[in-house]
């Protein structure tokens, strides 16, 4: 075997390395890319959430689709368009655990420590898994929408509206992923992270899950009005069933942003605790 000349600084100047720093967007892209690679290499974690949400979509539609005519105030043209957003949101929930499971594996393997020893910014370390998770949710949402179209979904706002629905799913996914990433950082354990992602589950029921908001019982209606998911569902339903509605859209995006920022703050805190170097 020929011995490479270690002393040669040809390809990787020593002094350059001392001072160089990858730009923040590049760092984020690198960490996100790396998370996506590992997610796609564990397809077994990817498929079940998708199958479950398609299963629910079909069940809901088959159970309630024909009864939809009896539900008053159901805006627009179909129950499918009404129930599809719930299916997308619950697949976002169950899917958001994927990003966090990656992080848990990194913490367990020690790779996370290795990353902490590079000049990588804490922002990239957090945003990497969150964005990877959110992008995966976007892919899942697209697949669920595809199935819904096979079931006869017709979007009131066409393909552009469907794209916005996917965009909303991605945006909402950053919030969910921020939460599970916080759980992963806080616990460092796969089981605890899995458990924590279930905490979000009731949120998909404390909302106008199956019938429009004004048909809910008093207390549930109050809870639903406080639940950011309600506004995301409303925005998606509007796009699918009635048409472009800037108020609903603004509220939906705002709800995603509020959730996303709050969960990101939680993740920052969790990372700070983990890396306190105590």
């Amino acid at each position, binding site marked *: *075997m*020929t*011995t*490479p000349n*270690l*002393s040669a*600084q040809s*390809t*990787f100047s*020593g002094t*350059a*390395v*001392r*001072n*160089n*720093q*990858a730009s923040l967007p*590049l*760092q984020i892209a*690198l960490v996100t890319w*790396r998370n996506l*690679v*590992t997610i796609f*290499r*564990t397809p077994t974690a990817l498929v079940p959430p998708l199958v479950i949400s398609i299963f629910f979509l079909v069940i809901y539609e088959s159970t309630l689709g024909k009864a939809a005519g009896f539900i008053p105030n159901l805006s627009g043209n179909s129950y499918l368009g009404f129930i599809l957003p719930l299916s997308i949101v619950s697949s976002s929930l169950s899917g958001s655990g994927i990003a966090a499971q990656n992080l848990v*594996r*990194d913490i367990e*393997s*020690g*790779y*996370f*420590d*290795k*990353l*902490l*020893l*590079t*000049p*990588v910014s804490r922002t990239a370390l957090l945003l990497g898994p969150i964005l990877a998770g959110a992008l995966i949710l976007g892919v899942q949402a697209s697949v669920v929408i595809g199935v819904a179209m096979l079931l006869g979904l017709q979007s009131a706002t066409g393909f552009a509206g469907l794209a916005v629905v996917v965009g909303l799913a991605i945006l909402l996914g950053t919030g969910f992923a921020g939460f599970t990433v916080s759980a992963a950082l806080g616990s460092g354990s796969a089981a605890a992270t899995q458990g924590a992602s279930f905490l979000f589950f009731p949120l998909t029921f404390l909302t106008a899950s199956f019938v429009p908001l004004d048909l809910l019982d008093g207390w549930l209606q109050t809870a639903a009005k406080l639940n950011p998911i309600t506004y995301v569902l409303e925005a998606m339903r509007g796009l699918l069933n009635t048409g472009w509605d800037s108020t609903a859209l603004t509220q939906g995006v705002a709800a995603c942003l509020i959730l996303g920022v709050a969960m990101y703050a939680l993740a920052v805190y969790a990372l700070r605790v983990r890396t306190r*170097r*105590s």
Partner: protein
Amino acid sequence: MSNREIVVENLGKEYPGGVTAVSDVSFQVNSGQIFGFLGPNGAGKSTTIKILTTLALPSRGKARVGGFDVVDEAERVRRIAGVALQEIGIDPLMKSTELLTMQGQLFGAKRKDALARAHELLELVRLEDAADRRVGTYSGGMRRRLDLALALVHKPEILFLDEPTTGLDPASRRDVWEEVRRLNRELGMTIFLTTQYLEEADELAEVVAIIDQGKIATEGSPSKLKASVGTESINLAFESRATAETAVSHLSDMADNIQTDRDMVRLYMSEAAQTIPAVVNRLQQANLNPISLTLTQPTLDDVFLQVTGQRLQTEAAKPQAA
């Protein structure tokens, strides 16, 4: 200005809950030295390395790595230090080229340069053939070598290795030793390594510090430490008991203590190796020819026993599954 030195003064570390991992440790590692930190499990080796590599904060005391304070200038320390921790920190789903390239890019290299460096390092640790396989399929020895490569991506000036050969089979262990020596020799890299194997410290380190219960029990070059235990001996065998007795009468002033056992003579002294020529000279003058001459030196195990009062449980002899 970095100087490739490690200076540690009265370092101490308590974990929350009052467990003292390191009680009071001071030492200095000079530029370009291989420094062996030897001690049993739980002696404080890993905690010390975590503090020096900025992964943990000390409770008291000071430490400078390459002239930078590990608390206040952690970022600078990370730039000049390479670290391979005991738990091999690699994601089993990634391929080694991917891991190395990304590591290089995170250290600010352009993708092209990072890729070139990755190939250079893969060649160095002889993993070119496995470069495009997932790390999960690697043997223990291969993972260690990759971990070492990852620690070298940014051309560190000071390398920290936490038990680099624990769990490796003897052949892989020798490979790692060879690599460590080469990095030190060709790049002048300062190398701080912890080990629980006496043999490893003896093979690699110019200076060894023995840590026991959070304190440095003794420090020095392996040969000096062994000499300090003071039981070196020159062993001579002669044709007969009579010749042996004649020899003793000629050599009596050369050793601290002489033992005779039939035709065998043992001369106990410090610096026995250096005394061999004089002994041979004296015997030739007296026209006495020994059948054999051997040198017995104390081992680091003897040193360890003397300073800590116990033997270091060494698994070095037991080959383990790679």
